[in-house]
């Protein structure tokens, strides 16, 4: 049951300031969507596979991926990944809103998850990064910081080159 509730409650949102149609992912069938990449991780049991290598890695309830494994997939699979309160179009917290505004200002597409929908994710994100607050921003798999750090890096000019790298990674994936 745990795997089922996880599957229905977690949406990965992909926000692309240039092609807003990508936000349609939020209406896709609810499951652990890897939005910015073409790969999906299938955790469902009972699929017929011919070789051990192709069998689902997690078959039983107690073998479903841990929250940290799922977060790792997120941050490695999405050049810019944001854990926030609410969704980009309706942030539920001023700090999350500020992060979204900054990323939109740089016109960098990003993926996000709403920690308010999922208490396990909310706690998991904090323990994964050993960072006690939300929002959290990851670029190319690396933890960048929360709202204050993003605001500061934006002011000092440090943020732009980092996000440019992420844009490059994104265009490679698409191309």
């Amino acid at each position, binding site marked *: 049951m745990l795997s089922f509730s996880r599957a229905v409650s977690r949406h990965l949102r992909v926000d692309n300031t240039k092609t807003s149609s990508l936000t349609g992912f939020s209406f896709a069938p609810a499951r652990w969507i890897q939005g910015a990449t073409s790969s999906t991780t299938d955790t469902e049991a009972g699929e017929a596979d011919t070789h051990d290598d192709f069998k689902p890695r997690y078959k039983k309830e107690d073998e479903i991926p841990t929250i940290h494994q799922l977060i790792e997939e997120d941050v490695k699979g999405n050049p810019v990944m944001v854990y926030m309160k609410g969704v980009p179009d309706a942030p*539920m*917290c001023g*700090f999350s809103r500020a992060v979204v505004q900054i990323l939109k200002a740089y016109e960098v597409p990003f993926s996000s998850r709403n920690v308010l929908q999922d208490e396990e994710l909310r706690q998991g994100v904090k323990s994964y990064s*050993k*960072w*006690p*607050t939300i929002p959290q921003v990851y670029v190319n798999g690396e*933890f*960048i*910081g*929360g*709202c*204050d*750090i993003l605001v*500061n*890096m934006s002011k000092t000019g440090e943020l732009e080159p980092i996000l440019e790298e992420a844009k490059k990674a994104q265009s490679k994936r698409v191309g």
Partner: protein
Amino acid sequence: MANNAVGRPLFSLLDSKLRAAFNPVNLTIVNESRMHAGHSGNPSGDPDAETHFRVEMISEAFEKKPLVQRHRQVYDLLKEELEPGKIHALALKLKTPSEAEKEASKRTL
């Protein structure tokens, strides 16, 4: 100041802990809880709530340390206070004396 310890236990605790750990050149703590009355961190809207804080601190302890590390230093120090149900939000502006000087000179130009 005498009232601080009585009516604002968390404020006072933050102040003393931060001063002891970082020996800051400048420390400003602002309780912004009132601005968040009714919001999830301060649902009752209690005007004396201590849920949302902003800390601006200038300290030599941050010299040559990236921002993430500076924030972690503060988070580690305030681990207990940041547990769920206590401080809900903590905005941090952590600078070294030289960074603060640079910023000040930019402003006057």
